[in-house]
């Protein structure tokens, strides 16, 4: 049962990474490519971590996995804002 949950969530996560790549390659301008990238960042990694949570033994290993995900979320959200400021058409506002 837990294995089936892992297979479903990890597959969904891998799908979002694939979607992020396709979006990064196919979308027409920098800001929409950034939009595709954040989906892979947040949902892809989140679903992979969720799937792996069913496999770990012990609460400490699970907390560590969640910690990795939270760090990636925080970093991704911050960095995406910074890149968007650099990439916006009018340039960076004063």
């Amino acid at each position: 049962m837990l294995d089936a949950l892992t297979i479903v969530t990890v597959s969904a996560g891998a799908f979002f990474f694939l979607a992020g790549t396709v979006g990064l390659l196919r979308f027409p301008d920098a800001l929409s490519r950034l939009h595709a990238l954040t989906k892979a960042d947040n949902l892809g990694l989140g679903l992979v971590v969720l799937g792996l949570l069913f496999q770990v033994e012990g609460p400490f290993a699970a907390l560590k996995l969640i910690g990795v995900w939270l760090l990636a979320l925080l970093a991704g959200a911050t960095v995406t804002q910074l890149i968007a400021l650099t990439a916006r058409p009018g340039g960076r506002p004063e």
Partner: protein
Amino acid sequence: MADFLLAAAGLVLAAVALGLVRILRGPSDADCIMAAQLLGTGGIATLLLLAGAMSTPAAVDVALILALLAAFVSVAFVKGADSAKADGA
């Protein structure tokens, strides 16, 4: 289960490697750093999947370091872009 996790790791890595084509195409610096950002996140996911597949918990520590460094890369890029603009370049 280990086989499935290994296959998923390979799939994620292949997808992210494909995204590196964006670095070749450009056109702007922001696009290149986006592909590098995707490589960082995909690398974290791959390492976590490998840690699960081969029961090597140390790979989770490597993933944690990669998450930290991937964040620094983009912050360094934005800082560099700002100072280049201030220099009038």
